[in-house]
């Protein structure tokens, strides 16, 4: 019953903008509240930029999802970059390895309902986030 996922290859700045626009369109389609739309698009923007900057590019897949009771949006961010060796450190507010504000990972996690990360040094990173309608 889930809609097919839409995939965007992330290789440049413009692709990050395209990810934001796609997420926004789907978030509106499942009727997320305005604040939840904003939170989800912001999280997607942070994570897609991570994919580009730290992962050296990759892809993002956005899909509608349904757990029987509620609808939602699920987004997968995947790259084949260097991966994250120390997850605890990466989730610390203010920690950054790339000259940012260090809010990307931990901040994005606070903006979504479900956050799942699979990574290891040298094996790339795949992050899956979900936001449910209230």
């Amino acid at each position, binding site marked *: 019953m889930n809609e097919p996922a839409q995939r965007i290859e992330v290789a440049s700045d413009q692709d990050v903008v395209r990810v934001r626009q796609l997420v926004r369109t789907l978030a509106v389609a499942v009727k997320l509240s305005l604040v939840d*739309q904003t939170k989800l698009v912001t999280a997607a923007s942070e994570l897609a930029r991570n994919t580009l900057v730290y992962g050296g590019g990759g892809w993002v897949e956005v899909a509608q999802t349904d757990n029987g009771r509620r609808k939602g949006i699920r987004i997968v961010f995947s790259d084949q970059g260097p991966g994250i060796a120390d997850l605890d450190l990466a989730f610390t507010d203010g920690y950054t390895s790339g000259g940012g504000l260090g809010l990307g990972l931990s901040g994005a996690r*606070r903006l979504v309902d479900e956050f799942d990360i699979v990574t290891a040094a040298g094996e790339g990173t795949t992050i899956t986030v979900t936001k449910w309608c209230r």
Partner: protein
Amino acid sequence: MERVPILKIGAILLVSIQIDMEDQVALQLQEDLADRIVATGCHGVIIDISALDIVDSFVGRTLATIAGISKVLDADTVVVGMRPAVAITLVELGLSLPGIRTALNVELGMDLLARERFQDEDEDEDGPDNAETPVVPAP
């Protein structure tokens, strides 16, 4: 690449961001604005973000950098028109935009700049650079 236009209104530079900015566009704006402040000698910058439906950490950082650069060039920056949903998201994200002044809309932003300038000049009364054009405070 698109560019964000910078308008000069009296002694103020007005930047109204109407597009979903790529990171490069944001960096370009940062450069353009620094150039314009020096070229025009303006002491106030208003950045209107009422059309932005999100502000992520990159845009947040760009705004903070712009405010910092402007300060060094003796101009005050006010960010105006942030949407409620954006503000709520920024709080959750943990981004507090330190060092950035904000106002609800362009008009209140202009009031704020005028007040700042007025106070600065009060303090600078006997200062050396009193020859600059005075900004008329709001009535």
